[in-house]
């Protein structure tokens, strides 16, 4: 970890970065914001760790826990909402068997999350599966996509 952090630190110093860009770099390196990484940088930069966590928890983009191998993001924009995104989300949580308040499955295979709007409203409701946008999604279609991902995992 230290080696990558050193690299992030050097880039920060050379490019007049700020805490947000620093955190974005940490997240793209580790997939989430590990507490140890924050503490390391906090010491190094002499910026209180609380400042980092204040920003981490303010912005929806940052995650404090590791995420699943597959990330399924349901759009909750207005158009998606009136076209039934709520049902998709209920179905998704049920299919992944996620308890209330949890977003990642215990086996770390799936993370289910919501996004405010991805701006693809004319093909609502929209679900993003591992960075690929799927429009006009149905509850059944979503379950099929999840099954496909599970099969892939078994094959591998």
């Amino acid at each position, binding site marked *: 970890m230290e080696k990558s952090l050193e690299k992030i630190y050097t880039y920060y110093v050379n490019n007049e*970065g*700020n*805490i*947000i*860009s*620093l*955190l*974005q770099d940490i997240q793209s390196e580790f997939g989430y914001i590990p507490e140890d990484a924050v503490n390391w940088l906090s010491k190094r930069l002499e910026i209180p760790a609380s400042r980092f966590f*204040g*920003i981490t928890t*303010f*912005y*929806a*983009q*940052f995650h404090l826990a590791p995420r699943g191998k597959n990330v399924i993001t349901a759009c*909750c*924009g*207005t*158009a*998606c*909402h*009136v*076209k039934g995104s709520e*049902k998709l989300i*209920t179905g998704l949580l*049920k299919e992944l068997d996620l308890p209330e308040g949890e977003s990642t499955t215990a086996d770390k295979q799936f993370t289910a999350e919501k*996004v*405010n*709007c*991805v*701006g*693809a*409203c*004319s*093909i*609502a409701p*929209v679900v993003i599966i591992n*960075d*690929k*946008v*799927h*429009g006009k999604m149905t509850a059944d279609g979503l379950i099929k996509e999840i099954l496909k991902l599970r099969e892939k995992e078994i094959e591998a």
Partner: protein
Amino acid sequence: MGTGGLAAGGQEVMNAFKTQLKGKGITADIRKNCSLHKVGCRGLCAKDVLVDITLRNVKTTYQFISPDMVARIIEEHIIGGTPVQEWAVSEDYHQFHDKQFKIVLSDCGLIDPEDIHSYINVGGYDALKQVLDTMSREETIDVIRKSGLRGRGGAGFPTGTKWDACFKAVSDQKYIICNADEGDPGAFMDRAIIEGNPHSVIEGMIIGAYSIGSDKGYVYIRAEYPLAVERLRMALTQAREEKFLGRNILGKNFDFDIKIKLGAGAFVCGESTALMFSIEGKRGMPRVTPPRSTEAGLWKKPTCLNNVETFANVPYIIRNSAEWYASYGTEKSKGTKVFALTGKIKNSGLIEVPMGIPLREIIYDIGGGIENNKKIKAVQMGGPSGGCIPADKLDVPVDFESLTALGAMVGSGGLVVMDEDSCMVDVAKYFLQFTQSESCGKCTPCRIGTKRLLEILERITQGEGRAGDIDLLLDLSADIKVSSLCGLGQSAPNPILTTIRYFRDELEAHVRDKKCPAGVCRKLLAYFIYAERCKGCGACIRACPSGAITGKKKQPHQIDADACIKCGSCFTVCKFKAIGRE
């Protein structure tokens, strides 16, 4: 070919054309027609993928194209010379465009957003040359002021006035910022513009920077728009290569460059002071104004912040004159506005219309009316800060003042159509959930007040409404509006207020009768089976997740009301309309 176009298979269609044409030894100019849904700016996203074929100067547009259709188009049209009529766009495609007037979107859908020369060929960067060659800063600002251009981010502040204030501010450093943090759910104009014609935004920013005397610019863009970010990055690199950005631009002793700042997912950062804090790397919490940003903005330096669409208008105004621009629109709202037309509408997509056009014409003439020929109930405008305009007010002219008078707003330009199946209480609750979770927490009335509003609405939609709830909502809303610092809190109660104003009956039905007339609020529904229609096929039994439906084959089934979780699965799955709900 934008986010939506790629989702609809735009890339696959293009690849199919590429390989099959190559196989037949035909050279054709396959252009990535920009943006949103491959046709982005032509806008008819509902009919993706659209493909244009121009043969001997005759253009044919095809709709709903998939890769397996490509072979026939090549065979019959490109080689044979006869278009495949049955796949060509229909009447409503033309209707969709007839009432539109395109300025910002005029080149979108025609040019390749990934090639600066494609933009230069249609007059791109001519406005910049004209400004640097022949116009002083004051003259440039004057043209913008005379054009009547107002901020397209929602508030409608006169752009010329803002530029002038920033120009007059005395400082060793000034900044210009493009706000591309399009956070309103249901709006995607800014994304479409950047994906379709990024250079128009860059050119507008350079002209702005010259006018106010700035050498550093930022585009604050949502990380949720990866394709727009990529295209913008590409466009900036190309603009630098062509000497439109950097040191000594076009040899005129003017330095300016633009950096991209990625948003980190906070709606409140669309507010200008919060956005600037976010660029500085802090929590994006709005501050008290004055001082205005034009006096002390980013790092306390004079800063001019405009929306994507505002900047994109600038090159066209300079090229065509202020008078030309001001000849469109109404007395107080000049020019055109881009809207994202979505929801329960036939032709959903991106449109650009002159200000002042009646809302009805947008819905019926351009949008083609309501999906499945249902009845329109309301149009939601302005996102979480706006409100719902009821069906009987559809003749309202779409401009800043008229919409505000109705309790809605132009806002960023999201236009979501609701039909009789949409519950207005549910919609109000939806927006409240949004503003409540996006409140930055600085002002207590916004942080806690929206939470309380939401709790009341949740209670109402769960059948636990009490007498006096509506008055309580009104009271609390009024307090939040006057005691919040920024636009988020000041406008957060708007969706509730318009629901009370125009759909009080529906709200009262929830509170008093514990009924949801639109059949949306789950807890208020009861499902039952019409025995005379039920064929006893068992589809609902298989679909029911809670085992609440019983019955013998070929005999009418029953629903056990106590076991029913009201998920509606049986309602969706029944082919005989034998499931009823009330």
